[in-house]
């Protein structure tokens, strides 16, 4: 998958990305960048 496709995947349907340039630089320079989503355990 090329860089633009990867950036599109990260950006798609997002309400806000801080910052798109940071995401681009990250994907250009790091092979396995790390991301997370935290969930409270309440089902809400």
């Amino acid at each position: 998958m090329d860089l633009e496709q990867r950036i599109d995947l990260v950006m798609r349907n997002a309400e806000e990305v801080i910052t798109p340039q940071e995401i681009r630089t990250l994907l250009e320079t790091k092979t396995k960048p790390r991301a997370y989503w935290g969930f409270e355990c309440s089902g809400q």
Partner: protein
Amino acid sequence: MSRETSSRSPRIMHIGMGLVCASKIKDMTKAGFKFIVFLADWHSWINNKLGGDMEKIRVCGEYIKQCFTALGVTPDSVEYLWASDIAKDIEYWEKVIRIAKGASLQRTWRALPIMGREMSMIDVETAWIYYPCMQSADIFHMRLDVACAGIDQRKAHMLARDVAEKLGWKKPSCVHTHLLMGLQGPEAVERKFDENADLNVQISSKMSKSIPKSCIFVHDTPSDIKTKINEAYCPPKQVKGNPILELSRYVVFAERESLEIPRPAKYGGPENFGSYEVMEKAYVKGEIHPLDLKNGVTEALVEILKPVREHFRRHPRLLEKMMEIEVTR
């Protein structure tokens, strides 16, 4: 599952959490990220979720893990990590204190995730102050490049970015997702959640399990889904404040390449749309009737949620436990 429990569908995880998050997580792993699904048991304790009972909170975390797994966020594609796993490390708590020392009390207060409720100092437990500090510490301790969350969490992430700059730590980038609107449509803003007016409407109108009719739950039966969507607000030719168009955009097209609108033959027959944008244009022009949109979205949602129904039919134990917990709340 016993007849008593299956007689009502469990109101635990709604699709705003289940599907919007699952789709974005899958986007991130496809884009090459190492992704951590962080089960925030300590944070839930602070937030008095499930009565602040850690045992119930852990059951709920396991249940969330199974829901996500059924929706394609599998343990071989992401890492599931508990807050209590990293809370064992004294260096984690050192970060919490460093963050607390690097931010003013006013700044931390503003980043509290209970911003929706009217807060007075008297009603808020001191433990709350740890919450945004821990949210930031989580990010630094797991050495994350990107933090993902619903847009209502942006203040906590901004705190992490500010603190990072101050302490010389790596500044996390953020991906904030849309909050799905409740099926009743946009709500008048009664409470102030954010300085941004559009964001206020979005937070006020979000799908909330406290209003079950506004919500589609991941366990809803096909007939529940059909009834709820049929009764939902869906203004013709209008995009803004239309919860059914939102569902098609943020859920159906996030999970599927296309959406089939089963239009009656006399209005042009069924049509398959390959992108949300094209479908939205057709809707605005009046080429898709709200009822046809509803039927198409219902069929797609029933299909998308099928793996969850099948998973818990085969493995009902955790769901039963969760339902017992729900009953005693």
